[in-house]
């Protein structure tokens, strides 16, 4: 039940960010699904493992794989799926907290928060690299698979 709520809210978040950053209409739903699935993975893993690295890493590996898949299927640049689906994972909130602690002169918590920002950003970026390596290996197989699937809309209406 709780998983469902998390899933829906994260889908809405991703679609919302997609609208703000103007991604093509046909990429909205794929981006939302990618964001939702990766957030659920993050949430499930963070129940078991309380560190910052593993949940973020796993979530971006999933974004990388799903994002590349949807990018081929719907013929959109892969960044249009990455950016919206990342919105719930990226360390923006902590970056703000770090900047705030910094302005208010709380050196210790500022250092901790900025350290966390770098750690999360690294985990996310390494997750993408790993996903892209995996994806290159399975790409020919996927393209054959996609050719068998029913056609989807690959062009926005003018």
């Amino acid at each position, binding site marked *: 039940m709780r998983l469902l709520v998390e899933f829906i809210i994260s889908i809405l978040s991703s679609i919302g960010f997609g609208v703000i950053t103007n991604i093509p209409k046909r990429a909205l739903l794929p981006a939302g699904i990618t964001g939702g699935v990766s957030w659920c993975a993050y949430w499930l893993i963070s129940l078991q493992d309380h560190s910052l690295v593993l949940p973020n890493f796993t979530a971006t590996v999933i974004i990388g794989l799903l994002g590349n898949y949807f990018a081929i299927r719907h013929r959109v*640049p892969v960044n249009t799926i990455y950016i919206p689906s*990342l919105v719930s994972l990226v360390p923006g*909130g902590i970056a703000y907290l770090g900047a705030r602690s910094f302005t208010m002169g709380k050196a210790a918590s500022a250092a901790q928060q900025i350290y966390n920002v770098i750690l999360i950003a690294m985990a996310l970026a390494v997750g993408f690299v790993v996903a892209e390596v995996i994806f290159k290996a399975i790409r020919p197989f996927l393209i054959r698979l996609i050719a068998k699937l029913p056609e989807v809309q690959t062009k926005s209406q003018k």
Partner: protein
Amino acid sequence: MSQPDTEEILEVCGKVGEILLNAGAETSRIETTVEYIGHAAGARVACYATITAVFVSLENESRTRLIKSSLGGFNLQKVDELNQLSREFVAHKITFSDLEREVARIERQVINFPWWARILGAGWVSVAPMLLFKATNGDLAWAFFVGIFGYLGAEFVGRRTTTPYFKEATGAFVVAILAELLMNIGWGDSAGNIIISALMPLVPGVAITNAIREILSRQIISGIVRTVDAVFVAGAIGSGVVIAIVLTQVLGGR
């Protein structure tokens, strides 16, 4: 079909690079797209892109086009349209004059979602999954509306001033002032949670992650520029919030 001369090719390639740069595409994508188009049009084009400039040059001549730009926002729809256009052109589905006309159209066109969609979008981004079941449901509901006002404030100011970082600071200020107001009325449970949640449309999280991705793919200059920019955006947001909090404390007489 008459063969386009190198002058025209350079012109179109430069324009493509300029649009992509202003729409926030990655530098490697700009370089490959421009070079593909150039090669398909029959000229040996070399392109070098950094985050603030694109150079397009013909390899066997001395002519070069230099396009400057400042760090801008994202308009991924333009990236996508140009991407499709270049793919069609490389596959020889459209002619060079078609390409020229379409590029000019994309450059002029303001591609945006309607306002109501963007307002709703900003609202939903403001309900951060990160805070689900940590903040109270009431706070998250407030964050939905506060986030909308923060986004609108930032957009409103962003259209009227070109001062960098002022847009983000204003958005953060609006968010924090509204959150503190809700606290003082007694409707909100935690101003801190509302603020963090409602700041989601403004914070530079994506910029930070993109920066590290660029560095990992050896686009070191772009990566560093993006990182520094993200740090300053975070600083602007932090100061916007701090100013709002201090102001409410002074006015509230606490």
